């Protein structure tokens, strides 16, 4: 009978072996550095292999008109498009545009809410990427009275 500790130890060993042989598809769960380093919306979307985004009513973005504190800006993205792959939240004038990427699966609704930092008044973009690598966006201007980056 194996106990939990042994099982964990063995699965760790197997994982590291797989990693060493390169069998493990590391890119499948690696942090997409290129996307998060992108300075603008187009580059971030491109880093996920999608075409240039087009405006669409099927993507929705919920964010305040005026954010008093740019350090905490609530925003929510949702989409009614079929065959979704990713939902992205981006802030155009942040030093790095991409805020968050959510993978859509069948088990969850394509509707996510989080809070973001905004350095200054900017357009906020919600981008939906479908499985055939088409991108759709909605944008909304959020006015920031107090910045969230730098101090």
């Amino acid at each position, binding site marked *: 009978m194996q106990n939990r500790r042994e099982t964990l130890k063995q699965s760790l060993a197997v994982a590291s072996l797989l990693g060493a042989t390169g069998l493990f598809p590391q890119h499948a769960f690696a942090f997409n550095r290129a*996307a998060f380093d992108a300075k603008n919306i187009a580059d971030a979307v491109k880093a996920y292999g999608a075409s240039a985004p087009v405006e669409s009513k099927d993507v929705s973005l919920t964010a305040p008109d005026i954010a008093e504190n740019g350090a*905490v800006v609530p925003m929510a993205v949702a989409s009614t498009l079929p065959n979704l792959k990713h939902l992205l939240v981006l802030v155009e004038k*942040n030093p*790095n545009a991409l805020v968050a*990427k959510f993978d859509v699966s069948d088990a969850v609704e394509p509707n996510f809410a989080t*809070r*973001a930092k905004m350095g200054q008044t900017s357009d906020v973009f919600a981008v939906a990427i479908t499985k055939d690598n088409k991108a759709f966006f909605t944008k909304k201007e959020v006015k920031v009275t107090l910045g969230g980056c730098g101090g």
Partner: protein
Amino acid sequence: MADPMRIRAQMQGDKAVVRVLMSHEMETGQRKDSAGKVIPAWHISEVTATHNGKPVLSAEWGPAVAKNPFLQFTLKGAKAGDKVAITWKDNRGETRTDEATVS
């Protein structure tokens, strides 16, 4: 070790709304300390959620997610008593997993 997450999973109709509040500094890498040196970025980079052990959501976050991040998502086909587990991993390799029961 980071503080535990606060997870609330509540049924609404046949779906469960999961709200998570994580405890993390989320340093952007843009700020400077009093000596003028840039404080290195330290943020949650990957978030995953499982429903009764089955992965349902994965997300990648940049440093622009607010301090002590909040996340809300809706789980389809859940019922009361189901287990929802959330795991995050930050760019220093620290991870934390917490579990909650759908009510």
